[in-house]
Structure formats: C-alpha cells, structure tokens
C-alpha cells in the first residue's frame, strides 16, 4: 500500500450529504472481472439522461479532472460495502477525503487503500468548505498527515485529528494482512481452545 505522508493538490467540492457507494461506483460495469474504475467513477452522475456530459457536475469541470482531495458532506460512502467505490476514487486521483463524517465500512475501505479520511471540527469544516468553493481549484491545498494539518496556498491552516492507529497505518502504508500474520500462533491457540470449549463453532 502506498504510504500517505503529504499530499498536495486540487480540492474538488462535492458538498452533499449521504453520497452513497452506488453513486460513486455504479454496478453494471463492475460486474466484469477487470473493470475500468476511472470510467466507473460516478459514471451515472457524470452524464445527463441523454448521455452527454453533465456540465455542472464537479468532476466534469476541467480543473477537477484529477483532484487529489475531495471535500464533501456527512455520511459519505454509505450503502453497499463495495470497495470498488474506493478504487474508483483512487482511479480519479483522489488520495484524501475531507468529509463531515464517513460511513463505517467505507471508512475502513479507505484506510485499507491508503486514502486519508479526514473530519474537521464543524466550524472549521464549514469554513474549509466555503474556501474550497471559493478557491475553485485555482490553487493547491496541502494535507500533512504527520502534522495533522491542512494548509491553503494563502497560509491558512486547519487542524484535524485522526486516531493514532489509523494515522500510523496510512503513514507507514502497512500491509494489514502482514501485521495480522504476526499473530498466527495466537490464532492457532484460539482455534484449539474453541474446538475444545465450543466445538459447535469450529465445525460447520
């Protein structure tokens, strides 16, 4: 997994609540073995009913064709557990999401893929969203995960807090399975214990 230390780039504002994973990664095209995640990314919302590009949709605007940062509302990534939603965001270039809140499974999927899920204090979030709209992709925004700050081109700084465990995972780009593999002897011991004490659980 690619470590996340500092990301500097354009921030695309999609200031809506409850953006679900069906919107981010519509099924249909994901039903194939080798999906094109860049094409799948908000595929329906990018188009009008007659198939033309939806000009008002943020990711269709030229300055947001490859944004590193997404700014959005509450409960982002709700609905289906599909990890394709995160892979779509990655395919679009996004490495960091600043939201009012994240859906539980989606947030975990972000951490599994080196995307930083950031939540600001409500007052800061309001100000940051307004600035993202005003800046409109004209200047870059810097996210420094170790320092837990977001810095705008004019020097404005927003502080955020990400729990240490999540931060470490992102900063080090750790392989989660590898980390768990260090506990193999405990897993084996647990299995032996269960087969003696709760045998109905150890055999279907």
């Amino acid at each position, binding site marked *: 997994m690619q470590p996340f230390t500092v990301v500097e780039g354009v921030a695309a504002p999609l200031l*809506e*609540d*409850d953006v*679900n994973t*069906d*919107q981010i990664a*519509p*099924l*249909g095209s*994901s*039903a*194939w*073995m080798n999906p094109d995640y860049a094409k799948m990314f908000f595929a*329906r919302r990018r188009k009008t*009913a007659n198939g033309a590009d939806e000009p008002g949709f943020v990711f269709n605007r030229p300055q947001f064709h490859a944004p590193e940062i997404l700014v959005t509302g*509450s*409960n982002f990534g*709700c*609905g*289906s*557990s*599909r*990890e*394709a939603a*995160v892979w779509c965001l990655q395919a679009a270039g996004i490495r960091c999401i600043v939201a009012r*809140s994240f*859906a*539980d*499974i989606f947030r*975990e*999927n972000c951490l*599994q*893929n080196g995307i930083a899920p950031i939540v600001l204090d409500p007052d800061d979030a309001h100000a940051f969203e307004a600035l993202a709209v005003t800046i409109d992709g004209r200047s870059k925004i810097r996210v420094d995960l170790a320092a837990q700050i977001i810095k705008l081109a004019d020097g404005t700084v927003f502080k955020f807090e990400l*729990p*240490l*465990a999540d931060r*470490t*995972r992102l900063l080090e780009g750790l392989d*989660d*399975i590898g*980390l*768990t*593999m260090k*506990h*193999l002897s*405990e*897993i084996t011991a*647990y*299995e032996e214990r*269960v087969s003696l004490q*709760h*045998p*109905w*659980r150890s*055999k*279907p």
Partner: protein
Amino acid sequence: MVLTLFDKIWEAHVVARRADGRDLIYVDRHILHELHAPHAFRKLEAAGRNVRRPDLTFSALDHTPSSNPGRDENTNREGAPLIAAMREGSKRNGIRVFDLSDAEHGISHVVAPEIGMVLPGATHAVPDSHACTVGGLGALAFGCGTTELEHILATQVIALKKPKRMRIRLDGRIGPHARAKDVALKILSVIGSSGGRGYTIEYAGAAARALPIEGRLTLCNLTIEMGSRTGLIAPDDSAFSWLYGRPWAPTGAMWERALSEWKTLISDSDAQFDAELCIDCSDLEPQITWGTDPGQVVAISGRVPDPANAEADRRPLLEKALRYMGLTPGMAMEGLPVHRVFIGSCTNARLPDLQEAAAVVRGRKVAQGVHALVVPGSAKVRRDAEALGLDRVFREAGFVWGETGCSMCVGANGDKGERGERILSTTNRNFENRQGAGARTHLVGPTLAAAAAVTGKITDVRKLMTGEV
C-alpha cells in the same frame, strides 16, 4: 462483570489485540459471493497466501444470476465470467460452492440461517453490507470490503476497532397490519440513515421479542441502512426452536451443550449502552419510503413532506429527492400510480413474506400495465412456497415467479426498472438509479407491494383487505 450481549460475543472472539489498538476477531463462518471474491482470490494468490480455513468458508452465487425461469449461469451474460471465476477460485482453494442447481442455493443472508449455518453467539462475515441480517439469530455479523475479505481468507480473523453500543427498545404490541419491515422503516424515520454510525445496535423490548425469526432477520437486515455495520437480537426460546433440527445445526449432546451457552447470550440487566432509544410500536401503520434515502419514510396514510419544514442544510437533499421521485410536497402517498412491483431480496423473501403477499394477491389480478416479479430468497423458500401452492397464486394473478437470487434489489442480474417508472420494492435501498437508471423506488413490506401490484397504485393494504378500495 456486567456486559451487553454484543460485548459478550465480541470478548469471546478476541484472538489478540494488535499494537494499533484494533482487536483481531475470529470469524466462525465466512460466506463469499461472486461480485467481490474473484478479485480477492486473485490478490491472495498474487501475494502467495493460502486460504486458512476453507472448511469455514463458503461461496454463494447470488448477486448476478438471472431470475428468468429455467435460467443457467449464462442467462445473464454480464455475470457469467464472475460465476466461472467464483467456481474456479473456490475449487482451487477447497471452498464449497452453493451452486445454482444445489438445494442450498440462494441469497447467502437467507440461506445461512435457513440451513442452520448461523449460530447464536457466533461470528459471521460476508463481503456484503447486509451481512448484518443474521443478527436476527443472535449472531454477530460484519459486512466487509474486498481487502478485509482477503484478510479473513488468509487469517480467519478480522481486524476491527470495537464499536460503541446502542440499544433500541421496541415497546408495545405490533398490530396485525404492521411487520418487521415497518418497524425497521419506522426506526429509520427516527434515526435516519446515519444515526447508527459507529455503533452496534441491539434491538430489545417486547415488540422485538414478539417478532418471528424471519421478522428479526428482516429488522437486522436494515441495520446497515441506519449506518450501523451490525445489529442483533438476543437469542431466546423461539430462536432456539427455530434453529433446532436444521441441517447444519448441532445435534444431540452437542446441541444441549451449545444451548446451555446460548442461554447466557443476553445483555445483563444493568449493562450500559452508549446510546438508547425507545420506539412505541403499538399503533404502527404500514410504512413506505417517499425519497431516495432509506430514512425518508412516511406512514402509508401520510403525505410527501415539505422540505421547507426541514433544517436549512438538509433542504437541498430533500428537494433533489423530490425531483428524482417526481413528487411534490403535500401529495398523498396513496393513489400514486405504480409501474413495477418487486417482492424479493435478503430483506423480504423468506417464506412468511411470500405467504403474506400471496394472501393479498389470492383471487386478484395484477393491474394492467404493472410488471410484477416475485423472487424467492432461496431455493428452499421456492420449494416450500411451491409445496404450499404460492407459485400458482402469484402466477395466476400475473406475477413472474422467478428463480432465486438478489435480482432487482441491486440490478446486477439484468432485472431492473425503466427511467421514470415507479417501483414498489420489498428491498433495502431506494437510492437513485439503484433499480435502473432513472427508476423510482419506494421501499415497502410484502403486503404493500402486493396491494400495489393488484391495484396499480400505492394502496393501503388494510383498506384493500376490508374492501374499502
């Protein structure tokens, strides 16, 4: 120590605490499905890792198979490569597939309880957000992503930060016209689609205990729509007798031993919850969603809400939902014309769901211009329904009696609505485009769906059954 039900199951499954503060939770049963598992098999093999416990892992083929009567793996051509990859990957790794022609075929969340694979106090994982369904039997279930799925395949544990605890107490007595789906939609109308974020929900109270097991599965199924990854109900005598004698359930002395442990699976009387909510279910009407979020719910006798009455920052979303759904504030829900009806999914496609819908349909005809589809949740539900003659009731009325699978709930198998169509669906998500580009989904229970099919409009089933409409 005073513990909640959730804490008891969690603590009994902690294998280790990782340095990063997450617990490694043992997964007793793991069911894969064809949309995501082929990708995980590929990644696992590329990393040179093996499936640790193929004997605790099972493969469902539920998301993509066509529901067309007489279908095979190629009927839905988009799904065919995934089914092939699933069969091959499962075979290579020694994993049992519940294949299309098997007696145990069906939607994994329906099949796992029905065969007795899910046990009270056990953990369960599926790379699907509706894994939480099986909490209805007192199991602790987690929907997960593809990387987590790969993690479980390799290690048989899932690394989780322990969620907080919420208890939703359901008081009162549910009347004859409301069902588990209505209870769940009512809760959604109160806490919204993110009210449960960060929590495990325990449903308790007299009305929860009075629900039949199939109803408990329906209620727990909709936990993810509240934003919670998992929800559960303490297993009781009705859960134990429901489970007893099912093919995979323990037998004899093993059953007795398991049972004595299962009887301890309750929240201690003074256990502390991080959040509590009480809902009175006494006068609950059948419920229906009006918008594009499962929390946008009104009673069947209700009217489309006015965004002007909502908090300012929520208004744009509500207005957008109204536009998409083709509704205006103040409209009555009853009487809106319906083009399509779907009875199915892990939410509402168990035998009692089909029986309740059939009781409404019996002796009536699907209204002209309405396309009505029933897809039983499993091959067993389909067989049992046919033994009761329900297939004839539906077919004679003009419904299509489909082959089992997720079907129109997620629209990955070719079943979907057309742009602008109004659909009454017994499923779990009314998101924009979920059931077809531009299709308008209203979530309801099986009886409201059936009533709409035979009248061609949104209809209060209570009035239909008393002859008022």
